[in-house]
């Protein structure tokens, strides 16, 4: 079997182990450490500056198509809602939207924890929306449990619906994966007729700062300091 290694450190280690003469060992050890040090320095020089953990871009064309579509959703603690009505409010107040599912292991808990963290700063300033991409498993009861787990306040709402409707919606905003388990961390920001897409997992500070920037750019001033 061919073992594939990126660096051959282990090979050097083996050479090191064979040298049982103490003096030689010490010498070698100094040499080895020096080598590692040089490699280390070289490597740290080669490393790119700390990459951002997320990217934001504006989505140009889908806005009208996506947000005037007749897609019925079912709210976790309420009745049927038209998606277009749900997001119509974004002209006055930004809407932050994520697609999640309650049994999701790795990505969704972090995504939802981000919303949990920013919701306190956004009372009366933004609407938060989480839509299940596993609607046949995530019925209203499951979603309510999930909302409770994440201490969701009243401006953070949870939705399920018909599988086909929700697939259609995901396709509109270009996040549909054939298998929900390939789901990625995406957060949408809707403000003043514009749609921004954030890929990745930002910190709380980053999230709020980015929202501020978008508000400035779109000249919606609900979030003005104070």
């Amino acid at each position, binding site marked *: 079997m061919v073992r594939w290694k990126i660096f051959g450190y282990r090979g050097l280690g083996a050479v090191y182990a064979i040298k049982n003469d103490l003096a030689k060992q010490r010498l070698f050890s100094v040499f080895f450490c020096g080598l590692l040090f040089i490699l280390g320095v070289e490597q740290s020089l080669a490393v790119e500056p700390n990459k951002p953990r997320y990217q934001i871009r504006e989505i140009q064309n889908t806005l009208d198509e996506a947000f005037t579509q007749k897609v019925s959703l079912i709210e976790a603690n309420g009745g049927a809602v038209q998606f277009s009505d749900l997001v119509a409010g974004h002209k006055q107040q930004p809407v932050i939207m994520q697609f999640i599912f309650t049994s999701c292991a*790795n990505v969704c808990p972090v995504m939802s924890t981000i919303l949990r963290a920013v919701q306190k700063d956004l009372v009366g300033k933004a609407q938060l929306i989480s839509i299940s991409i596993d609607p046949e498993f995530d019925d209203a009861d499951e979603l309510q449990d999930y909302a409770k787990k994440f201490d969701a306040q009243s401006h953070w709402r949870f939705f399920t619906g018909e599988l086909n409707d929700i697939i259609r919606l995901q396709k509109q905003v270009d996040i549909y*994966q054939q298998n929900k388990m390939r789901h990625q961390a995406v957060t949408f920001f809707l403000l003043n007729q514009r749609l921004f897409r954030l890929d990745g997992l930002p910190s709380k500070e980053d999230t709020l700062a980015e929202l501020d920037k978008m508000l400035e750019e779109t000249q919606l001033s609900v979030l003005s300091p104070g």
Partner: protein
Amino acid sequence: MFDREPLICLMIKATMLFLLFFLVMSKATLANDFQIGKRFYEKGLLADGTPVNVVLQGDIEADGYLINCASCHRSSGYGDGEGGNYVPPITGPVLFNDYAPERQYIFRNLYQDVQTPTTRAQVHGLKQRAAYTEQLLNRVITSGINSDGEQLSPQMPRFMLDKATLKGLTVYLKSLGAQNQDSLPKIGVEPDILHFATIFTPDVNLAEKAAIMAVFNAYFKRKNLNTIAAQKKPNYSSGYKSDFVYAQRQWQLHEWQLTGSAEQWTKQLAAFYQAQPVFSILGGKGQRWQAIHEFCEQRSLPCLFPNTPLPVTAKTGEYTLYFSKGLQGEANSLATYLESLADVSPVLQIYRANSVGEVAAEFLDKRLSKKQSPKVISSHLIVTEQQMLDAAFWKPVLVQKKTLVLWLNRDDFATLPSLNGNNLKQASIFVSASLIDLKNKPLSHQRYNKALSFIWPWALPNHEPKRLYRARAWMRSRGVPITHELEQLNTFFVLNVVDYAMHDLLDRFSRKYSIEIIERITENGLNPGLYRTMSLGPKQRFAVRKNSILNASLLMLKESNR
């Protein structure tokens, strides 16, 4: 006393006792550490039972209820590569040894998954690193600095740990993924052979069993021939394939035929397992699955997709996966449908005493009475085991103004008089299509009547996923007579799923990990074409979620289309 027993003897005795005490205590604390570690890993609770404080992404505070090790590194410890986040394995052998990335273990992440720029950077950036110790583990968990002194990405949260929890976690992590050459045969893995079993309960008839076994045999035969061919020329096959050959083994299937009543099965299963341990149970068939479910859970033995109308739904297991919730799902779907009607006459449920239909009727009652003021009232008409069903039985039933729900088998259903031209009082009769085996055996044309509706667990006729044709073609080309298409296609599905899972597993023979892989791949278009959709997720145990209520007139259409 001192004269009789020399002091030295006493001292030796005391030492022995002390040592014994010490041994027992240390065993006990080890077990205790393990439990503390397991609870912390899976539930995020510290040794004192309070949730751990967590910091995510640098500045987001949360606690162990929301985020714990298992969320990301998964119960198995093998991590997760799906979606926008690569999470590395932290099983004992990986963590507490020097580590170097090996291509075959991250192959899927490198070449097959949908990649985001982040995952691509993560996976391609994997590096060799030194072994962890308990102290280094503490450092990485609390401050994100790895065993080589490098800062990890903030996607690995920071946790505030105390000493007792750290000790427990170390013990627990060491246990994860720690299969060695000696213990492998005890889970059905031998150097050249991988053992599986399938189970039949005594109610399964010979023809059904033969139909299912024909699919198993054809699949195993082809699979094993392919393995032999690949192993003959390990370095020949183009590109990456040879990376995987070393992990492949000959598959061997054992048929576990249970006898007698359900109380006797546990013992029989234990005897089968002792004679030949297996890695997992594949498919099989039986009206009642409780005893088998419990056996599998107790032994941490994957039990994959049996054909059964009565899966265990009360407390979902870790190791038992089902196609659907069976009759309970059907009862729930029917209840939802009936409640959605503007006007519905009282329900009369008809079934035989001590049959699976009886359980279905209880499910329906339970579901209907969940509503505070039940809209639908239900009563029962129980047919004894000996009673013959005939025209005399049906006549008084059919003139009542009731919604009939029949939880009857095929033979009993066949005694229902033709509804055409009959002066029916009730608007509708609902029948479980699975109980009357409608998928395998359509009714004769004149049996279909608009008054009749079926609870239908499968894809709607003429709307089956395309894979149905491929699955049928596979059976034909392998010379498998299609006599019980439902069970045969289900078996084909199980085999596909296991084949993919074992391929991903390579030589990491963790049963937990195999279940996690199956949770992930079930939605990957493996649906044999019988169901509208199939999918699982972490901790989800039922792959098919919806039943339709299908009026017989739609089936009539289908029949005439043929």
